[in-house]
């Protein structure tokens, strides 16, 4: 699903965020990405999301070489990916329903199907009663679940999460992580950046550990 071949990322100004990263995450796999802040977790996710471009090396997504993909094609690649952010990035001027519907609207789904899919996603995350609520009225955990609903509503092949539990208490964090596991069970590839080592260790998934922009361990299954 995600394949890095000797990937380096140097930001303008000469700062090397990632150097010589190689790994291959299989389709349908789930993995954690850990490391101290500044180790390059976010940069790695941004490369996968095509927010930043690779400086050296090759990057494949779903078998397609996206290292030098044209800017025009980026949106279509991103539609295959669901993003979950630490601060959920919901739009405050519209309801939960409209927030979750956004990826489907962007992809041009017909009206009826949007309603059906949004409700299915909200149902899966236990948010059906919040459909008409505005994001400001939601608790942190609910807002994060809405963010996840938005990420999974168009059935992406890959879920990317950047510190999805950073603002949540341990119980909620575990719930969220379990949710990711459930999506993975139905075949979605999941890559989660997190520094919550305690939580990660409780879960039985491969871990990619970054240190100063380099991959130091590659636990079982991710190779």
């Amino acid at each position, binding site marked *: 699903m995600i394949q890095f071949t000797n990937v380096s990322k140097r930001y303008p100004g000469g700062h090397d965020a990632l150097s010589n990263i190689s790994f291959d995450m299989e389709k349908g796999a789930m993995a954690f990405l850990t490391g101290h802040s500044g180790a390059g977790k976010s940069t790695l996710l941004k490369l996968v999301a095509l*927010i930043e471009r690779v400086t050296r090396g090759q990057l*494949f997504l779903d078998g397609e070489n996206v290292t030098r993909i044209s800017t025009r094609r980026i949106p*279509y690649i991103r539609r295959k990916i669901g*993003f979950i952010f630490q601060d959920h990035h919901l739009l405050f*001027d519209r309801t939960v329903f409209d927030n979750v519907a956004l990826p489907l609207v*962007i*992809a041009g789904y017909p*009206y009826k199907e949007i309603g059906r899919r949004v409700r299915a996603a909200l149902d899966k995350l236990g948010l059906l009663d919040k459909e008409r609520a505005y994001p400001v009225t939601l608790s942190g955990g609910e807002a994060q679940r809405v963010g996840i609903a938005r990420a999974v509503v168009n059935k992406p092949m890959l879920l990317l999460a950047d510190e999805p539990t950073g603002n949540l208490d341990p119980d909620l964090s575990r719930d969220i992580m379990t949710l990711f596991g459930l999506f993975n069970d139905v075949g979605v590839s999941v890559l989660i950046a997190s520094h919550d080592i305690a939580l990660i260790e409780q879960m039985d998934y491969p871990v990619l550990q970054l240190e100063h922009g380099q991959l130091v361990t590659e636990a079982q299954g991710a190779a």
Partner: protein
Amino acid sequence: MKRNRRQSQHHWRERLKRRLSPVIYLRRHAQVALDSLGRLFRNSLASLMTAAVIGIALALPSGLYLLLDNLGELSSSWDGQASLSVFLQDTVTAKGARKLADRLADWPEVETVDLVTPKQALVEFGQQSGLGSALEALDENPLPAVLIITPVAGHLAPATAAALQSKLAALPETALAQLDLEWVQRLAAMLEIARRGILVIGALLALAVLLVIGNTIRLEIQNRRDEIVVTKLIGATNGFVRRPFLYSGVWYGVLGAGIAWLLVETGFWLLSGPVTRLAGLYQSEFSLDTLPLQLLGVLGGGGLLLGLLGSWLAVGRHLRAIEPR
């Protein structure tokens, strides 16, 4: 791995192909258009002020143009019946005047000759000026006999009419030969200058409208920066992000044109009473025409285009700078 890649590219093309049917595409456009309009109404006061600025800027040139159009119609309605007035010397007798009229009627350039005797002229003047009783007090009629000459159609052009004028002026019986067309021509020349002036004003105000819309859209883009970033992150194309702003611009332009139309109509309605009264004083049935359908179309279409262009400029400049970081 390679097989896998080919497969997924195939899968990709499939997905692109079934991306959008025309119906869905049109429906999406309609929906974005309505959304943009709804957004305008939600900030109704701010939107109204922007639309009003655009409306005033559009109303000024269209109102002036319309006024000019009316004046032009007035002058053109008199173009066709241009005539020359030949005022005769006092020494010419009534009989002599009649003879001269008959003689002139035979000239090839002359279509008709009407003789206005001093007596007739006095009666007419008394009626029109309202000085009837004052004129009665005069010992003798001060008015000369006048021959009103209508040239044949071929001699209506300014140069030939002027030639006829000098020929008439050379007659010994003539005191003064006057080309009644002159003031019409002067008016037409003045109208031409005014028309150019309005074109310049119109161009400048169109530019102002463009800037107003561009700036409004720029602010809107800044206000919705987060939204743009998020939508781009979840796969929105530039076209998708651009569309609501373009529609906002179009709505501003169209609303502005609507306000301009209201302003012009109101202005002309306020003017129409006094103008008709003034025209009445000149024995004319002239009255102001309001915006004809064509001009309304030009106004609406112009507003729409200016809105689209203004927002396009703003969107082109500012949207590209907003990318997820």
